[in-house]
Every structure is written in structure tokens, then in C-alpha cells.
């Protein structure tokens, strides 16, 4: 009797979707997301937009930190570079939005070569500090290049129109974010199961062993940086459009920390983990507020007026609890639940 989920061929092992129920669930999720703009109010829709944009950015960071094991504390630098590249091309030079999106990917990707180069010699905390320094430098460069970036005054961005389709309404913009997030998810899943993805993971697990196996560390590490920065830059452009105004202040350092928190809580090295982690981190304050409001109006008010302090505490608490009790993150928890569901009432 079959009592587990066994992979019997290599094809099964690398399949994107490995069973009919997963197909069904994916279709249900996609239908729910397509229906969401018609069902949700503007506030809930804005949360969905933030989730989709954050998923895109988190998947970008996941390639670098999750797959390749290179810690980045400065990913907000790529995010802001992408947002500015889009804003400058589209708002300042009246380029088509698609060119803007391309620029939003390419410019951070080029910038990542500068920060990626030291990564060939640095690891762990040293690399983390290097990426942190990059995000500080990029902010200064943006502020100083007033002729191009308007300096601290920022640049206003309109919602795009692509192939005659206006993304001006929240619903339409949500679809754009959804399409980009879905494409990014597919792309990262495909990268993970390809030769490149396996090389990334080999570098993460043991770079000396990877080199012995013939993996070119320099090329693959740089490729991880470039790919990660490209995706993060696209997320930056979406975030800039969401904000409707791009300025250095709109991209605080805290975003880098939040992105790392998402990966840790979701489960490092997993695309599904990046998605689940994003949903948890974005919706955690809302869920907590909902629970608080059930008890009393005063508790609800306290949460509303002290929201950001409470949010920071919640993030901290959640990360500590996950690291202590579920180091594999939400993906680990999900696998446990799945196993229990399949084997119930048996334990194994």
C-alpha cells in the first residue's frame, strides 16, 4: 500500500507541480486572485497589492540568500534603484512603461555587478555589511544626481498604460502586480530546478565542494546577484508606482530587514516559503488587530494608534518563535501539516 509521496523518476523530482490536488489548489488560488479585485474593498486590495509586490521582491532576494546562501542586508538598494530607473525613464523621459520596467530590471542588475564583485571573496557577515554599505552609497548617489533623479525632491509616477490597457484603477494595477508576481514565481521555480539552480544550492551548501565539482563560483555568484537584483528592481518599479511618488525616504532600510524576516519565517531557500512568509508578515498586524478588536474597542484603538511599535514587536516575536520552534519556517510547518493530512489517522 502506498503510504507516502514518493518520487520514482528524475522527471517527477523536478516537476513544477507533482500531483492533481496541487493543480487543483493552484487553479483555485489563481481564480481567487483573479476574482479578488471584484470582491475586496480598496483597503484589502491595497494589502493584496503590497503582498504581490513584496512576493516579487522576496523571490528576488530568495535567489541570492535562499538558493545561493549569500546574505544581503542591502536589497533595498536594488529596490530603490529599480524604482528610480522606472521613474526617470517613464516620468522624466516619457519612455513607454515596458521600457521603464526593462530599465528597472537592468539598472539594478548592472549595479549588482559592482556589489557582487566583492562577494567573490567575501562571505557571511562580511558580505552582509558590504551589501549594507551599497544601499547607503546608492541613496547618496541618488541624492547627489539631482539633474537626473531630482535629488531629495523625488519623482512622481503615474499608473502605466501598456498596449492600450490602462492600469490606473486599483483592480487593474493588482492584475499587473499579479501577472508579474506569477511570472517571477514561475521563473524562480524554473531556475531552482535547472542546472543553474542546482549550482546555486551547491554553492550555498558548500562552496569548496561546489568548486571541486566544477562549478564556476565567480560566474554563478555574479549570476545570482544579477538575477536577484533584476527581479528586485522590477519589484521596486511596482512599489514606486504603488506609492505614486519615488523618493529615497520611501525606501527605508527597514525594508531589507523585513525581506530577510520574510525568508526566515517562510523558510529559507523555498519559493513557496517566500510567498507564505510574505503573506504572514504583511497580514500579521491586520490579523492581530482583528483579534484585538474582538476583545475591546480600547485594545483595538491602542493597536491602531501604536500600530508601528506593535508591528515591530510582533515581527521580532514571530521571528524568535519560528527560529526556536520551526526553524524550517512556514514551509516546514506546511510539510508537517501535509504529512499529517495524508497519513491521518496514522502518524507515519
Amino acid at each position: 500500500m502506498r503510504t507516502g509521496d514518493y518520487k520514482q523518476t528524475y522527471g517527477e523530482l523536478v516537476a513544477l507541480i507533482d500531483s492533481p490536488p496541487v493543480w487543483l489548489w493552484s487553479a483555485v488560488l489563481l481564480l481567487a486572485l483573479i476574482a479578488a479585485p471584484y470582491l475586496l474593498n480598496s483597503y484589502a486590495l491595497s494589502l493584496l497589492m503590497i503582498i504581490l509586490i513584496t512576493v516579487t521582491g522576496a523571490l528576488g532576494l530568495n535567489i541570492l540568500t535562499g538558493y545561493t546562501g549569500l546574505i544581503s542586508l542591502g536589497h533595498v538598494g536594488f529596490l530603490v534603484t529599480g524604482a528610480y530607473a522606472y521613474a526617470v525613464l517613464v516620468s522624466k523621459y516619457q519612455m513607454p512603461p515596458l521600457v521603464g520596467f526593462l530599465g528597472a530590471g537592468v539598472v539594478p542588475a548592472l549595479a549588482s555587478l559592482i556589489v557582487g564583485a566583492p562577494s567573490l571573496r567575501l562571505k557571511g557577515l562580511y558580505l552582509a555589511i558590504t551589501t549594507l554599505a551599497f544601499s547607503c552609497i546608492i541613496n547618496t548617489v541618488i541624492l547627489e544626481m539631482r539633474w537626473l533623479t531630482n535629488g531629495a525632491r523625488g519623482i512622481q509616477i503615474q499608473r502605466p498604460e501598456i498596449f492600450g490597457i490602462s492600469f490606473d484603477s486599483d483592480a487593474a494595477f493588482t492584475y499587473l502586480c499579479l501577472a508579474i508576481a506569477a511570472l517571477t514565481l514561475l521563473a524562480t521555480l524554473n531556475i531552482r530546478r535547472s542546472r543553474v539552480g542546482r549550482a546555486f544550492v551547491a554553492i550555498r551548501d558548500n562552496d569548496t565542494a561546489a568548486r571541486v565539482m566544477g562549478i564556476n563560483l565567480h560566474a554563478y555568484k555574479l549570476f545570482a546577484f544579477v538575477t536577484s537584483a533584476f527581479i528586485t528592481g522590477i519589484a521596486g518599479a511596482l512599489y514606486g508606482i504603488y506609492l505614486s511618488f519615488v523618493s529615497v525616504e520611501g525606501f527605508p532600510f527597514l525594508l531589507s530587514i523585513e525581506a530577510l524576516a520574510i525568508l526566515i519565517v517562510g523558510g529559507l531557500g523555498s519559493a513557496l516559503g517566500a510567498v507564505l512568509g510574505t503573506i504572514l508578515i504583511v497580514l500579521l498586524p491586520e490579523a492581530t488587530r482583528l483579534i484585538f478588536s474582538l476583545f475591546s474597542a480600547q485594545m483595538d484603538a491602542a493597536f491602531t494608534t501604536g500600530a508601528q511599535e506593535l508591528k515591530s514587536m510582533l515581527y521580532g516575536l514571530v521571528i524568535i518563535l519560528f527560529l526556536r520552534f520551526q526553524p524550517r519556517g512556514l514551509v516546514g510547518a506546511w510539510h508537517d501539516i501535509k504529512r499529517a493530512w495524508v497519513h491521518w489517522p496514522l502518524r507515519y
Partner: protein
Amino acid sequence: MIKHLAAASLLLTTACLAAGPVRAADPGITDTEILIGDVEPLTGPPALLGVAASIGHKIAIAEANAAGGINGRKIKYVLEDDGYVTARTIQGVKKVIDVDKVFAMLGISGSGQSIAVMPVLEKSGIPTVIDVAPVKHLWEPPRKNVFVIGQSYEEGIVHLVNFLADKNPSKKWGLITQDDDYGITVRDGFDSVVKTKKLNVVYSGNYKKGQQDFSSDMLQLKDSGAEVFLAGGIIAENIAIMKEIEKLGIKPVTGIFWPGRIEPVLKLMGPAGDGIYAVDYVESFAGAAGKAFLEKAKPLVSEAEFKGINRYTITGYAAAKVLIAAIERCGKQPTWACTISELEKTKNVETGVMAPISFGPGVRFSNQKLQIMQADTATLSFKPVD
């Protein structure tokens, strides 16, 4: 498979039930209540401004409610914290409009945050009175439903520098500004006066936002021999700058701008802050109007809130007064259209805490009259200069 189908159906049903209802026209008003929303930085360092502004709104609302509310309806204030993060300001504004369903908006957060939420406000059409950070982007071009109370940063700086230049002719000037939008505005205003008054600028510095150590900057100021100095910091920076000046034993005639003209700053500056000049469009608490405002506020707010009162409380109070008056003029059945129309008709409305407020057709900026004040550390207050 049946398990999966059952779970999927349950999830979809839950999602449909959780979805928000369709919004009725002109929400936020019932037979007994009118809801007014606001999003401010209530946590973190900018809370000094956001909390104070919200206290001003609360005072005006409590005053109106004590007088019977707006045509019999009590005003309920819905306040949201954005932590001074732009994305959260947008979410906060969407929440108070779509989830809390407020009738009108006050506030809103800092200058960058207000600019970012402008498309949301404009698209929603909700009557809004902005009072915290008046910057030109908010009223140029004028938006139908968004009104701004205050004075532009550029005008404020020009007024202050002109005053200091007239009072100190033929002196050497020094200036330090922050590397952000605020700093650029201060510098642009200063530069425009430099040209017209032909000022002799011997020191011009720029610092990174969040800088704490100004020892080398102030040493350069000392070496330059500047006699008149414009400290372009906001709160912590101006305190650090003045402390450094005190340490170096120099005493230039110093001017600061209104975002930092709050009494706790004077307390932290100590004797170093004595005699510094400031420009503002709201009354000083040392003057008769300011004292009267404090007397009025005392019974309407808690002790903790009373301690948090500063100039932003006054701007918040004035904005709320103007908004409440406009809704009131719409009678028993106020609508967004009527409120916007009445806000536009606002003409010389006296709030007692700043010059009369006026808007008009196509005019969404109240363009408040400016005045110069001087710090008195003995009483920890800013006194109007004749």
C-alpha cells in the same frame, strides 16, 4: 480528492464572506455620528509632530461635541498610525476611507507622505484638510477636494532671512541644511534672498539626515567668522548644532524654521537656545492668543495629551475648526459635495490661533501670514517680535 474539494469550497466561501461590502455614497455619517479620519506618525521620532497634530484635532472635536456636535451629530475621530512610512500612509488612508468609512480627512502625516496619498485622496473625492506639512505639491495644481492650511516652506525661509538681513546689515552669513527635500527647500529660499539682498555667505554646509555629530561642521562655521547663522535642521539636529555652537564659545545671531519651533527643543538646547529667532504662522504660546488656547485645551484633553501640545497642535486645531464649520454650514444632511463647496467658501474664518483662514474658487491653500518670534529659555517659550 474529496478532502481537497471540500477544503477549497470552504476557503472560497470564507473569502467571499470576508470581502468588504459595496460602499455607499458619502459614507461616514449616521443619524447620530460623523466620522473624521486622520493618519499621522504616532510612533518613532516624528511622533512629536504627529501626536501633537492629532491632539489639536481632538481639541477642536471635543469643543464641537461639547457644544452639541455638528447639527446634533457627535463627531468621532478615527486615528491611524503610519510610523512615517509612506506605504503605510497610503494603506492607512485607504483603511480609514474604505474600512472605517469616514466622512472627511484631516492631517495627514509628513510632506512626502501627503504627496504620495494625493492620488488616493483625489480619486476618492473625500473632503480633506491638510495641516501638518504644507508643501507646494499639495496645492499646485489645486485638487477639488484637498485644502491646505499653512504657509509654504519657501515663503517662511524668505521671511526669516529677510528679517535677519534687515536686522543685521553687512554681516557675514552661515547656513547648514539637511540633504533631503526639506533641506533643498530651505536652501532655495535662502538662495533667493542672497541674490536680492546681496548677502555675504561665508559658510554653507550640508549634512546627512540623521547626523548627530556636528563638531566639524560648526568648527568650519566658527573658522568662517559667520555672524548670522541659519540652522536648517529640524529637531535633534538643531539641538546638536546649538550645543556645539555653545561648546565652541561663539554666539552668532541664529534663525530656525518652524518644524523645529517647539518648546521641548528649547528645553533640550538649554542656554544655547536663548535668543534664537524663528518664523511661524501660528501664535506663540507666550502670547495672549496662545495662552487662551492652552486654557481652552486643558479641560478637553488628558494630562498626558496636554503635555504633548506644541505648534502642530495649533495647526491641527485650526484645520479641524475649518472643516467642522464647513460641514456644519451644510445643515442637517451634509454631503461631500456640499462640504467641499463650503470649504471653498471659507472666508476669513477666525480660529484664534493664527491669522484668519480663507480659500476660494481654485484656491486650495490658505497662505497664512507669517510672524517672527524669539526664544526665551527662562520661560521655555517663543515670544513674538514686534
